[in-house]
C-alpha cells in the first residue's frame, strides 16, 4: 500500500504541481508561468505554515501553496485540474482569523496575507480522524475484491491519517453492485464517497454531464439517466481519478493487482495529440493505460479510444510471421526469404519503370503508424535507395505535406492563450479528442473566441462565438470573405455572423486549427483557405489537425511527395541530402490520390509496385471503389502490417511489424512536439519493429543504412534533418524532457519547465505501481536535472559519415506561394453537396480489433436539413434514395436543423445502411454532388 505521507516530499520536490493547481483546471492560465518567483511582488502573499514563513501567488488555494512548500495535506475531492468544491472535508486545517483559529478546508480557502496556518495540530488530527470515520461509515470495506486495492487514496489516507477504528455498528447502506453506467464503466455506489470528482469531470472538463448525483443525504448516488448511458469519449478518466473503487473500467476489472504491474511512461499514438501515458503490463500483455499529467499537452486526461485501444495489441489477430504469396496463397517463410522476395519485386518494379520514371517507380503508402525513426528510415529507403518520391503517409484525407511542413506552428498552450481560434476542421472531439478538451476548456472559460468554419455542427459549436456553416467546396471562399470585406460572400453564409467573425479574426493573436472540415471536399481547397489566412492575418499561427498517430512525424521525416526529412523541400534539399544519402529522387512524385488514381485507371505513369506501411486505403482513402481497384491493379504489393486486413489479403509479400508499446523511439504530435514512446512488450512471434524492417530490406536491396539502433537513427535525424537540428537524443532522454520538445528548437538554450511530478491522490495508480518498477516521473526522487542546452548554431561534432560537408544546410520549408486548388463548378437546384465527418469509434483497425471499443460503433443515418426534408416529403426515419454520378444507395434519413440547405451529411467509415460513406465519394472530383429521391 502506498503511503501518501512518504510521497509528500517527493511530490513537492519539483514544486510544480502547485503551479497548475493555482490555475484550477483553467486552461489559459496553465499556459503561463504560475510560479511565485516570476510574479510581481504585489501578487504575492506571505503567510505562516506550521510556523514557517511561506509565500504564494495571490489567489492560490492553501492546499496547493502548502504542497509547493513541502507540506502535503490529505484530500479527496480536490483535484489540481478541476475547480475546488470543498465537499469532502478531508483537507481541514487550522487558519487564524479575527475570531481565532478555525478549521477550514484548505482546498477552498485562498492564501491570505499574514494568515497562520496549522496542518498538524491535535485539532486538525481530530478533524481528519472524524472525517475518515464518517467516510467509512457507509463504505463496504471490500478492499480484498476491489480493483482499487493497493492504489486507493481512501486506503492510503485512512492508514496515514485515519482513526484506525470505527465506532459505527449500525447497518451500512446497500446498493446493487456494480451497475454498468456505460459499455466501458461500472459503478459501485456502496464504495462511493461522494467526492464529485467524476461528476465534475463530466460537467466541467468533458462538457457533458451524463452522470450526476441523484437523491440527497445518505442516499446520494452517482447516476446516469435511464437510457442515457455515460457514452462520453472521456469516461475512462473518471475511473482514473475516482479516489475509491467506485468506478471501474470494464476492460481492466479483475485483470490484475496494481502491485503486480510493471510500467513505463510513453506517449499515446492512437491519434496525433500525443497524450502522455503510463503503460502498465503484466506477463507481456498491456493491462491498462493511465493518463500522465503533461502540462503542455493532456493535463492527465486521455480519451477512451486511446485508453482502451491497447486491446488491439493484445489481440490474437496479429501477424506473427513473414508471408510470401506462392501459387496464389500466402505462405509463411523466413524473414530472409520474405525480404529477398520484397527486394527482388521492388528492384524489378524500378527496372520496369526505367530511369525516366524512377521517381515514380514505387509507391509507398502510409507511415503514420511508424515512429519518427522508422519513418525516417523508410523515407531514406524510398527516396535515397529506391529513388522514388511517390511516398505519402496520408490517404488524401489530410492536407498537402508541403503545406503542413511550411505552416507557422502554434503549440496547444498558444492555442488556448490566443484571442481567437479559427477552427477549420472536422469535429475535434471525434478526431483529436484531448485537443478538443483543451480548446473546450478555454472557450468555456471565455478565454478564447472560437470561429468555426464547417459544413456541419461539431462538439465545439455550442461553445463557439461564431459558426459559419458553408457548403462543401466553399471553404476557400469563406476564408476570403472572413478576412476581406470586399470579397464575395458565398451563398448561405449569414452576413451578421460573418461580420462578427471578421471582428474576432482581427484580434492580435489568432491561431487556426487546420484540418479537413469534410473529407468530401478536396484538400487543395483547404490549403487555399490556409494561404488566404496567412496572407491576410499577420502573425497567424496554425495547429494542423491531422489526426492519425504519428502523421506529423511522418511528414517531418519526409513521407510526402516533394519533401525531405526536417521540413525541407525536395529541390532545396537536393544537394544536402544527395551528399548525406548518396542520391535523392530526380523529380517530385505522386501523392496517395494520384498513385491510387493512376493504378485504378491503369495510367502509364502508375507506380509499378506498392509498399503499404500499416495503412488501409480501403477504409482510409475517401473513394473506396478507387482504392479497391488500385490495390487489385498493383503489380507488386508489399504489406508491412501488424494485423491482417484487405491489404494483407492482396499482398505479394507480408512483413509482420511490431505494434504500439512493442517498439521504442519518438513520436511527433500536432504541435511538432517530439516525445519518447517506450517499448513495454516483446512483439509477438517474429514481428519486427518497422525501423528494422527498413534497414534489413535496404540491405537486401544492396544498400546498408547505417543505423543499428533507434538511438543511432535519431542521431542521424538530428544531423541531417534541418528542423530537428540540435535536438539530440541525450536531450530527449534527459530528465525533464518527458513532456517532449517542440521542433524546430528556437534560438538560445532550450528552457523547459520541469514536468510536474504526479500527485498520487490526483492520479492514483501511477504512483503506487511505480514503487515496484521502472520509474515514470511520478516517483522521481529528486528534482529533474535540467536538460543539456543544445549547441545552437554550432555544428554537431559527431563527425559521422552521413554528415554532409561543404554543402549548405537547406532552409526549413516556407509556405508554398500558391496551391492548385481545383475548380468547383456551381451546382444546380436539384443537387446537394455531401459532407462527410469522422467518428471516433469507426470501423478502422484500432477500434474493430479492440473488443471493448468495437461494440461502440454506431450505425448512422444520412442527415438532411429540415427544409430539404420537407421538399422531399419525408420525415426522420424514412428511407430515401441517394444518387451520385457513379452509384445509388437507399438510406435512412435523419433531420439536422444545423445543416445548411442543400447539404447532406454522413459519417466516415461507420455503417450507413448496408455500406459506408466511402462508396459515395468520387476521388476524381473536388466535391461530392448527390441527388435525393424518394423511393418509388
Amino acid at each position, binding site marked *: 500500500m502506498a503511503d501518501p505521507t512518504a510521497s509528500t516530499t517527493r511530490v513537492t520536490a519539483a514544486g510544480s504541481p502547485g503551479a497548475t493547481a493555482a490555475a484550477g483546471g483553467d486552461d489559459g492560465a496553465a499556459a503561463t508561468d504560475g510560479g511565485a518567483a516570476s510574479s510581481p511582488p504585489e501578487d504575492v502573499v506571505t503567510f505562516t505554515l506550521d510556523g514557517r514563513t511561506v509565500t504564494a501567488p495571490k489567489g492560490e488555494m492553501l492546499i496547493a501553496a502548502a504542497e509547493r512548500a513541502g507540506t502535503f495535506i490529505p484530500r479527496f475531492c480536490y483535484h489540481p485540474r478541476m475547480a475546488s468544491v470543498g465537499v469532502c472535508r478531508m483537507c481541514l486545517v487550522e487558519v487564524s482569523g479575527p475570531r481565532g483559529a478555525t478549521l477550514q478546508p484548505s482546498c477552498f480557502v485562498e492564501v491570505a496575507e499574514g494568515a497562520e496556518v496549522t496542518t498538524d495540530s491535535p485539532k486538525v488530527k481530530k478533524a481528519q480522524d472524524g472525517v475518515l470515520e464518517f467516510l467509512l461509515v457507509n463504505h463496504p470495506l471490500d478492499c480484498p475484491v476491489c480493483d482499487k486495492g493497493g492504489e486507493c487514496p481512501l486506503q492510503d489516507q485512512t492508514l496515514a491519517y485515519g482513526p484506525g477504528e470505527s465506532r459505527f455498528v449500525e447497518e451500512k447502506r446497500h446498493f446493487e453492485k456494480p451497475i454498468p453506467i456505460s459499455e466501458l464503466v461500472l459503478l459501485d455506489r456502496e464504495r462511493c464517497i461522494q467526492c464529485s470528482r467524476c461528476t465534475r469531470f463530466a*460537467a466541467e472538463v468533458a462538457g*457533458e*454531464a*451524463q*452522470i*450526476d*448525483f*441523484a*437523491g*440527497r443525504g445518505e442516499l446520494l448516488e452517482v*447516476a*446516469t*439517466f*435511464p*437510457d*442515457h*448511458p455515460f*457514452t462520453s469519449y472521456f469516461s475512462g478518466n473518471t475511473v482514473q481519478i475516482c479516489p475509491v473503487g467506485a468506478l471501474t473500467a470494464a476492460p481492466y476489472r479483475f485483470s490484475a493487482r496494481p502491485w503486480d504491474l510493471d510500467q513505463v511512461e510513453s506517449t499515446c499514438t492512437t491519434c496525433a495529440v500525443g497524450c502522455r501515458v503510463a503503460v502498465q503490463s503484466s506477463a507481456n500483455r498491456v493491462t491498462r493505460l493511465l493518463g500522465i499529467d503533461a502540462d503542455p499537452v493532456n493535463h492527465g486526461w486521455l480519451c477512451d479510444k486511446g485508453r482502451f485501444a491497447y486491446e488491439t495489441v493484445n489481440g490474437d*489477430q496479429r*501477424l506473427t*510471421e513473414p*508471408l510470401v504469396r506462392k501459387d496464389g*496463397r*500466402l*505462405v*509463411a517463410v523466413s524473414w530472409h526469404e520474405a525480404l529477398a522476395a520484397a527486394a527482388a519485386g521492388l528492384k524489378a518494379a524500378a527496372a520496369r519503370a526505367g530511369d525516366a520514371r524512377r521517381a515514380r517507380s514505387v509507391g509507398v503508402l502510409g507511415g503514420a503508424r511508424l515512429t519518427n525513426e522508422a519513418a525516417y528510415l523508410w523515407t531514406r529507403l524510398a527516396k535515397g535507395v529506391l529513388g522514388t518520391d511517390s511516398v505519402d503517409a496520408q490517404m488524401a484525407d489530410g492536407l498537402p505535406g508541403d503545406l503542413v511542413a511550411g505552416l507557422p506552428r502554434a503549440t496547444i498552450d498558444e492555442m488556448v492563450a490566443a484571442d481567437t481560434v479559427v477552427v477549420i476542421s472536422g469535429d475535434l472531439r471525434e478526431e483529436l479528442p484531448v485537443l478538443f478538451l483543451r480548446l473546450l476548456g478555454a472557450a468555456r472559460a471565455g478565454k478564447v473566441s472560437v470561429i468555426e468554419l464547417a459544413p456541419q455542427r461539431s462538439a465545439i459549436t455550442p461553445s463557439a462565438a461564431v459558426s459559419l456553416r458553408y457548403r462543401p467546396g466553399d471553404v476557400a471562399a469563406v476564408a476570403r470573405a472572413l478576412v476581406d470585406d470586399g470579397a464575395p460572400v458565398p451563398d448561405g453564409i449569414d452576413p451578421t455572423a460573418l461580420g462578427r467573425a471578421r471582428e474576432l479574426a482581427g484580434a492580435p493573436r489568432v491561431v487556426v486549427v487546420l484540418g479537413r472540415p469534410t473529407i468530401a471536399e478536396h484538400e487543395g481547397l483547404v490549403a487555399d483557405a490556409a494561404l488566404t489566412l496567412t496572407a491576410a492575418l499577420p502573425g497567424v499561427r496554425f495547429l494542423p489537425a491531422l489526426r492519425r498517430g504519428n502523421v506529423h512525424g511522418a511528414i517531418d521525416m519526409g513521407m510526402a511527395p516533394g519533401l525531405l526529412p526536417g521540413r525541407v523541400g525536395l529541390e532545396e534539399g537536393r544537394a544536402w541530402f544527395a551528399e548525406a544519402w548518396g542520391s535523392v529522387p530526380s523529380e517530385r512524385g505522386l501523392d496517395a490520390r494520384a498513385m491510387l488514381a493512376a493504378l485504378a485507371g491503369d495510367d502509364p505513369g502508375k507506380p509499378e509496385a506498392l509498399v503499404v506501411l500499416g495503412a*488501409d486505403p*480501403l*477504409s482510409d482513402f475517401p473513394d473506396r471503389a478507387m482504392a479497391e481497384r488500385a490495390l487489385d491493379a498493383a503489380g507488386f504489393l508489399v504489406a508491412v502490417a501488424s494485423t*491482417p*486486413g*484487405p491489404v*494483407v*489479403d492482396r499482398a505479394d509479400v*507480408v512483413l509482420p511489424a511490431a505494434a504500439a508499446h512493442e517498439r521504442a523511439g519518438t513520436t511527433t504530435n500536432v504541435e511538432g512536439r517530439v516525445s519518447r514512446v517506450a517499448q513495454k512488450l516483446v512483439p509477438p512471434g517474429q514481428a519486427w519493429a518497422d525501423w528494422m524492417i527498413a534497414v534489413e530490406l535496404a540491405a537486401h536491396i544492396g544498400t546498408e543504412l547505417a543505423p543499428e539502433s533507434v538511438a543511432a537513427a535519431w542521431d542521424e535525424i538530428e544531423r541531417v534533418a534541418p528542423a530537428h537540428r540540435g535536438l539530440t537524443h541525450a536531450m530527449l532522454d534527459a530528465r525533464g524532457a518527458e513532456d517532449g520538445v517542440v521542433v524546430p528548437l528556437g534560438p538560445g538554450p532550450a528552457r523547459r519547465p520541469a514536468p510536474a511530478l504526479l500527485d498520487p491522490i490526483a492520479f492514483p495508480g501511477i504512483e503506487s505501481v511505480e514503487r515496484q518498477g521502472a520509474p515514470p516521473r511520478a516517483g522521481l526522487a529528486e528534482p529533474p536535472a535540467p536538460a543539456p542546452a543544445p549547441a545552437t548554431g554550432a555544428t554537431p561534432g559527431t563527425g559521422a559519415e552521413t554528415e554532409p560537408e561543404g554543402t549548405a544546410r537547406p532552409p526549413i520549408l516556407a509556405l508554398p506561394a500558391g496551391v492548385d486548388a481545383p475548380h468547383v463548378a456551381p451546382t444546380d437546384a436539384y443537387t446537394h453537396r455531401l459532407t462527410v465527418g469522422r467518428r471516433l469509434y469507426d*470501423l*478502422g*483497425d484500432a477500434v*474493430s*480489433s479492440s473488443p471493448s471499443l468495437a*461494440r461502440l*460503433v*454506431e*450505425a448512422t443515418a444520412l442527415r438532411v436539413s429540415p427544409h430539404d426534408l420537407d421538399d422531399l416529403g419525408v420525415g426522420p426515419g424514412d428511407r430515401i434514395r441517394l444518387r451520385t454520378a457513379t452509384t445509388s444507395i437507399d438510406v435512412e434519413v435523419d433531420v439536422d436543423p444545423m445543416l445548411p440547405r442543400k447539404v447532406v451529411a454522413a459519417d466516415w467509415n461507420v*455503417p450507413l445502411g*448496408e455500406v459506408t460513406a466511402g462508396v459515395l465519394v468520387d476521388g476524381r472530383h473536388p466535391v461530392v454532388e448527390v441527388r435525393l429521391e424518394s423511393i418509388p
Partner: protein
Amino acid sequence: MTGEPPPTPAAAPVPAPAVRTRKAGGHLTPEVLDQARQLIALYPEPRSALIPLCHLAQGQDGWLCPDAIVEIADLVGLTPAEVRGTASFYDMLHTEPVGTYVVSVCTNIACLLRGAEELLEHAGASLGIGVGGTTTDGTITLEEAECLADCDRAPCVQVNHRYVGAQTPESFDRLVADLRAGARDGEVPRHGTLIRVRRSGGLRVGRDRIAAERAAMAEAKARRAAEAEKGDH
C-alpha cells in the same frame, strides 16, 4: 505450414446497434410548453428556470416522468442526468409515479407530540400501504414529511401540498373517502403542486414586459461594469 491470415475483421458486416437515447420533445402539451418558454425568458440563463419547469411538468403529469425530464433538459440546455439530479434533491418533486393525491403526514416534533406517529400508522394500515407507497387504485400516495410549518394545527396533514388541518385517525378516514369521491375537488387540485403559476391560474407575462426587464437588466449590468472599470483606475 501456410500462413493464410484470418479473414479481415473490418470486412465483416456490422450489426446495427439499437438507438440508445430517447429523443427530446413532444411530451409537454403546447400550453405547458408555452408557459415553459415564458419562464425561461425571465432569466438571463435558461437553466435558472429549471425548478419552475419541473413544477410545470409535474403539474401536467402529477410526477416528473422521464420524457418530461428529457424535454426540460433540452429546453434549458442541461443533460437529463442533471435535471433528475436536481429534481431528486427536492421532496416536492416526484421522480417516481405517485397517486392522484399525495398525502403528507408530518412527524416532526410538534406533530409527533400530538400523535403523528399513531396517525401515520393508522393511515398506513387503513390504506393498506407503507410510507412511500401508492394505493392499488392509484388514488393515494402516503408520505412522511418533516415540519410543514403548520405546527399550530398538529398533527399536520397536507394533500397535494394543500393544508387540510389537524387530523385524527377518524377524520383521516373521512378525508380519504372524500378524496376518493371527488368531494374535495374545489379545495385540493388533482396532481397539484405549489407553484405560483398554478395558483394564479397561469403565468401572465407579456412578451414586452420580458423584453423590458431584460433591457433593464442589461443596462444595469453595463452600468456595474462601467463602475468597476472606473474603480480600477
